[in-house]
């Protein structure tokens, strides 16, 4: 299945099939005519034809609606807001997070907690960072407000664990150093738009 299909927001009623509902029969003669039409007409066999066609397509063209879930998964839209990820800088492997605390401030469920300190390079460093996923309502404000695109929403929707606390650890959310090369730039909710470069204008300094 193609991901473009899930990104298509243009859902109209163009594919609806409108069924003409005839008037219900009232007199015995109309009842009789309906029975004759349905019994000796082709309506019953039309149904047989449809199911047979579907069976042939299912058998030979593999047109199945079944998804063998743990082995196969539907593609998730890039705008989907599942468990957060904290991205790293590709070049240096440093945390993208600058510890500004905007996400903590904007979080309407109060589930983000962070602690910062000044590290040896006189840079602000995040020492503790946790998201309580039991409280998180996945509104996406944190990803939207983040100036560095450090905290984003990932596609991990299978929140299964023995303990809820397993999901609040920063190391789980943070891209590991050895996986940095596989880190995909986030293009979902709150991300920079693809034509952001064209939209940048010089800051007017003259006033």
């Amino acid at each position, binding site marked *: 299945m193609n991901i473009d299909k899930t990104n298509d927001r243009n859902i109209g009623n163009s594919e609806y099939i409108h069924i003409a509902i005839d008037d219900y029969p009232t007199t015995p003669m109309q009842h009789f005519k309906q029975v004759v039409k349905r019994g000796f007409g082709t309506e019953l066999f039309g*149904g047989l034809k449809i199911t047979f066609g579907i069976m042939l397509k299912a058998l030979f063209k593999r047109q199945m609606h079944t998804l063998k879930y743990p082995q196969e998964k539907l593609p998730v839209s890039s705008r989907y807001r599942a468990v957060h990820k904290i991205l790293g800088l590709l070049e240096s492997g440093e945390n993208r997070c600058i510890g500004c605390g905007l996400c903590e401030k904007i979080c309407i469920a109060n589930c983000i907690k962070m602690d910062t300190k000044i590290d040896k390079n006189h840079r602000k460093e995040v020492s503790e960072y946790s998201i309580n996923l039991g409280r998180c309502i996945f509104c996406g404000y944190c990803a939207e407000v983040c100036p560095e695109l450090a905290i984003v929403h990932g596609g991990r929707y299978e929140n299964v664990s023995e303990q809820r606390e397993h999901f609040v650890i920063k190391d789980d959310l943070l891209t590991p150093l050895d996986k940095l090369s596989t880190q995909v730039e986030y293009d979902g909710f709150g991300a920079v738009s693809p034509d952001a470069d064209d939209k940048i204008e010089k800051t007017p300094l003259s006033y």
Partner: protein
Amino acid sequence: MDSYMIETVAKVMVVLLVFSALAGFTTYIERKILAFMQRRLGPTHVGPFGVIQILADGIKLFTKEDFVPANAVRPIFMIAPVITAATAFIAMTAVPFFPQFEVMGYTVRPIIADINVGLLFVLGAMATGLYGPLLGGMAQANKWGLLGGARTAIQLLSYEVVTGLSILAPIMLVGSLSLIDINDYQSGGFFSWLIWTQPVAFFLFLIAAYAETNRTPFDLLEHEAEVISGYATEYSGMRWGMFFIGEYANLFTVSFLTALIFLGGYNDWAFIPGWVAILLKVGFLIFLFLWTRASWPHIRPDQLMWFCWKVLMPLAIVNILITGFVMMLI
């Protein structure tokens, strides 16, 4: 006499084992075909393509607790599934499955008892099988079961008339109730099949057969959407399983009957030998049963009664009258 006894016992064992196994395997075929017709996969995990799913189901059914509800009439509740399963196999005794063949100079006739009222016996035994759902439904102290049992009664009364009357016209043509005679009557090739001289009787019998085996358009006894599971609501484990072995055995009996009476039976069909021909016909009829189950909706009990008494029965009688007049004139 001894050799006759041994032969009969051997045939009984073969029929019992083959059709018990086939009944199980048909559930797999049914689930697969229904799945494909609804764009699903059906059983896939147990064995290649889920073929031995039936084994897993069998283990589950056999090891389940044999449960009898508190207010149920215990002996009747326990014996009802046996009636269905037993009569389904008893009905098979008078059905000739294949043409006779020779094994090491010994002629085998693949029919357990060639009685001269074969057809009557088969239909009678199959109709007795409806006592299973009826008694089981009424004995289980459950309202859904009671409704299922009541529906069994009205269904039996409705379709049994049509079965008997529709089969009368072919019997008048053949002049015998023995299924072997009916089969031999159609030995003159494709155009001697009774479906060409008795098309109305064929359709009436087929419709009645759907009601007889309670397959989908007339699947009133255990219509999930209306009466939970009908007569089988309180049943579990192998007692429930016996109902369904009986149902699938009946499915095969009815398919064999239709093939024998209307579709030329086990006569050679062009270049196809007789035993392959009847297997093809039975296979197609079974597929037809599953096909309609995937395609057509259930009907209401009052619609079934209306349909059987006001449409099918007059048609059957008119068919008998016309057949009679034509036979008198020719």
